[in-house]
């Protein structure tokens, strides 16, 4: 039992920290400032991150009767998710309205959501998978509607909730069918029985239903329609979290389902992944070209990035898994970074940042402008940034797996994508218009916490672009653990 608890230590730490935040929040007088709660949450996340690294010391294995697993794979994703949550908390610390009385709930919800995401990456029992997914989803549904005084906030939350529940229903239905077909919900057992089964009809049907649920969570086309609305309505610090951490967890689940549960059906699920990857990249990029609102544009960009990530799945075995894992990390670093910048430029307020509002940013605020351009360059996939190596490994895995056309489509897509990323970058670089009215957004206040968040994301993006060797090795170790 002792090691059982150790195997879910990060989740436990996150939940305890979340409960602590809620208790302190309740105990504080109504007039007290709630900001220190954010530091408690950040501290809790750091402890969780550290405890997941500690998990490397115990032997890989399962706990709670084969329900949860620890392996280099889960540790990789735990560290990634805790890192994202930490940065999102740091952004929120400096940008949430200071007088808000809901801050305690905000930080607690982030922590509870993080525990669900962490659990999702470690779960090897489909019912635990479902529960973990719900824990993470429900927190994010609420967080998406956090700006409830505006019209867009509740709209985002309700859309996300309705569509999300519907998609989770598909997942659950798939799990039920799989249980019917194989008589178990334990992933290793299913893998074993599916490999020896004669007839795959129900397994395939179940897999397709499950994929609907998972593709929804990673916002891959054609299950992506919620993304722009939710990103537009949710506060920017939440979007930084929403667009990365739950997706990382869902991609971990997808890797587990495809490569660990049903690797023998590769020839069957490969065309599906191929089609979804092409659809996500193309629809995401083409739609993003037309957006005037920066948050919606980045939403479509995240759909496209889900597509690039799916390209890696066509790679053979470990190289595909490693590429997908690495891409998740690279994407998270740059996407959290750019949302941090967008948050700082447009503020937490309900004003929607248009591309035109960014004109002259590089002149008004050279620091933020340079950071914006830097993250956009990484999203384009220019060498010496994390975005490049993410794409590089992903497409390289695809070419190695024989999907040359997919790689070509993907790279042409990244050419299209550069048009809208750089339209924003070049707008920011342009001289401010002469005699124009003062910019809609006041000069941003940059605090210590958000500086730390920016340093962390810039550092990681550069590190992944210049010396990706350690992370690549970690991703490969994780990949081997999954096989």
């Amino acid at each position, binding site marked *: 039992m002792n090691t059982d608890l150790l195997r879910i230590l990060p989740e436990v730490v996150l939940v305890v920290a979340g409960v602590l935040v809620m208790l302190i929040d309740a105990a504080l007088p109504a007039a007290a400032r709630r900001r220190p709660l954010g530091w408690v949450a950040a501290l809790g996340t750091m402890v969780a991150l550290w405890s997941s690294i500690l998990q490397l010391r115990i032997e890989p294995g399962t706990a709670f009767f084969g329900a949860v697993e620890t392996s280099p794979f889960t540790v990789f994703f735990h560290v990634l998710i805790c890192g994202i949550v930490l940065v999102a908390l740091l952004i929120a610390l400096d940008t949430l309205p200071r007088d808000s009385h809901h801050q305690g709930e905000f930080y607690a919800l982030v922590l509870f959501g993080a525990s669900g995401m962490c659990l999702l990456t470690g779960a090897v029992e489909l019912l635990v998978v479902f529960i973990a997914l719900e824990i993470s989803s429900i927190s994010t549904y609420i967080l998406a509607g956090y700006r409830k005084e505006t019209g867009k906030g509740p709209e985002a939350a309700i859309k996300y909730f309705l569509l999300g529940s519907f998609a989770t229903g598909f997942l659950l239905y798939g799990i039920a069918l799989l249980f019917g077909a194989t008589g178990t919900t334990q992933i290793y057992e299913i893998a074993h029985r599916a490999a020896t089964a004669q007839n795959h009809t129900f397994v395939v049907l179940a897999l397709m239903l499950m994929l609907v649920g998972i593709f929804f969570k990673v916002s891959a086309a054609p299950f992506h329609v919620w993304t722009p609305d939710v990103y537009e309505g949710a506060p920017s610090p939440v979007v930084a979290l929403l667009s990365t951490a739950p997706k990382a967890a869902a991609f971990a689940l997808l890797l587990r389902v495809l490569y660990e549960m049903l690797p023998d059906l590769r020839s069957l699920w490969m065309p599906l992944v191929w089609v979804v990857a092409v659809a996500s990249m193309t629809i995401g990029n083409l739609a993003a070209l037309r957006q005037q609102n920066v948050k919606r544009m980045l939403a479509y960009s995240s759909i496209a990035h889900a597509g690039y990530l799916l390209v890696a799945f066509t790679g053979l075995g470990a190289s595909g898994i490693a590429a997908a894992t690495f891409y998740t990390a690279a994407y998270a670093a740059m996407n959290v970074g750019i949302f941090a910048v967008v948050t700082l430029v447009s503020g937490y307020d309900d004003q929607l940042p248009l591309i035109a509002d960014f004109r002259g940013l*590089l*002149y008004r605020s*050279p620091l933020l402008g*340079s950071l914006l*351009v830097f993250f956009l*360059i990484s999203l*384009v996939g*220019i*060498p*010496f940034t994390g975005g*490049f190596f993410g794409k*590089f*490994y992903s*497409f*390289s895995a695809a*070419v*190695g797996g024989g999907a*040359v056309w997919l*790689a*070509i489509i993907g*790279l*042409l897509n*990244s*050419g299209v994508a*550069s*048009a809208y990323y*750089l*339209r924003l*970058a*070049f*707008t920011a*670089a*342009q*001289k401010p218009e002469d005699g124009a009215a003062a910019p809609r957004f006041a000069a941003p206040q940059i605090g210590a916490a958000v500086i730390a968040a920016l340093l962390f994301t810039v550092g990681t993006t550069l590190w992944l672009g210049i*010396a*990706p*060797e350690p992370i*690549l*090795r970690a991703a*490969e170790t994780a990949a081997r653990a999954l096989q």
Partner: protein
Amino acid sequence: MNAFNDSILTLILLVPLAGALLIALLPDRGKLPAWLALITALVTFGFTLHLPAHFIVGQPGFQFEVNRPWIESIGISYHVGVDGLSLWLVVLTGLLAPIGVLASWNAIKERRKIFYALFLVQQTAMVGVFISLDLMVYYGFWELSLIPMAILIAMYGRKDGAKAALKFFLFTFIPSAPLLVAILWLYAHTGTFNFAELQPLIASGALPAGALFWVALAFLFAFAVKVPIFPLHGWLADAFSEAPVALAMVIAGKLGLYSMLRFHVGLFPEQTKQIAPLLIALAVIGILYGAFLALVQRDYWRLVSFGAVSHFSLIVLGIYGLTLIGRDGAIYQTLNQGIMEGALFVLLGVLYSRYESSQIATFGGVAAKLPRAAAFFVITSLAMIGLPMLNGFIGEFLILSSTFTGVSKGWAIVATLSVILGASYALWLVQRLFYGPESPLAAEKPVVDLRINEWIALVPLAVLMLVMGIAPNIWLPSIESSMNQPQTKQTASSPHLALPALAQAVASGKEATR
């Protein structure tokens, strides 16, 4: 000295980057970033001069080579080196950096910090392109070279910088997508990104020829857009009109031309032979098309850009004639072109900063106000039209004579028309800008002739035009020492090119036709 030889290329690569970081960290106060950039650029130029001083002429293969694993698990290594092909291009890049800083000295008035930091990053990227021998590292610098350029065009564009920047970026970025797939395909089939290992592997014919054709085409396409050659030149005129002078002088030409020689002709000799006739045709069309369009332009930036298309096409003709002399001439003319465009852009920048107009019709009689600028402009124009004793002549002569003797008399004769057309538009431009009756614009604006910084920038370029025209022997032997590659038509005894180049080239041409 040996240790220095090992690290010299890394120094040339990293010193500008370090300078950029320093500029980024120090406050944006007055001329401080400009001074820092100037010092960095001069130090780097000093380092680049070490290369020709210690280059062993006639030794085959790469020199100053460094080969260290970078990202071992996927076989990317930091492999750099220079040979006769890249040697002088690195020096040229080093020379144009301080000149670019001096040309920007008064032109860039705001956000100097960003400008000079990005300018130095651009230097690193270009040097990286010239010295990288690992395809991934090469691709990295190739892409990186787009970024500072595009951002600076957007920031300092004259009219609509953002639009021109986007056009420039898309035109050059999208073709590099097939290039990356091609590189990945080569890696998937050979397991290496190393140029020195790939060359024999491809030559050995172990790879499927059908696929290799497309791979070579992907390489060529990316380079052809970057040069640019007809009909892929759509981005050039806008980029020239909007780019700050210091960047316009390096935006086109040498990166693409070098890459053609190294990574298309050098890596895929068989595929090159298949496609060479097409490129020769496109080059000749480009020579005439560019020159004709240059004749009718009303804006001098656009005129210069079409003139550049014409000149670059001539170099492409030299490359794809696949003769030794043509190749020599192409490399030499690439260097010439860098120097002449450098001077031309400094001078046009002088005009633009004084009169804030690029409409040729608004000028006239400026020579009375700017006699020194006019003198430099005339020298540069004469070099561009290939006047003997100036550098343009040597390159053009080598290319045209090699085409005549080694490729096709017809194409050569048509291409030679460009000499007449080139003289027409260049001299007509000089006449319309500097001479004739004084225009209202020239009459009403009080202007100063060349400032000290512009003077310092122009003198070395003018001197080089003369020296390179009189004594090409200083350069040609080291350029030739990269010639022992299998794809060229002539073999073994490479004809030693020396002045009088005329007699030599004709003689060796006869040798080739025998």
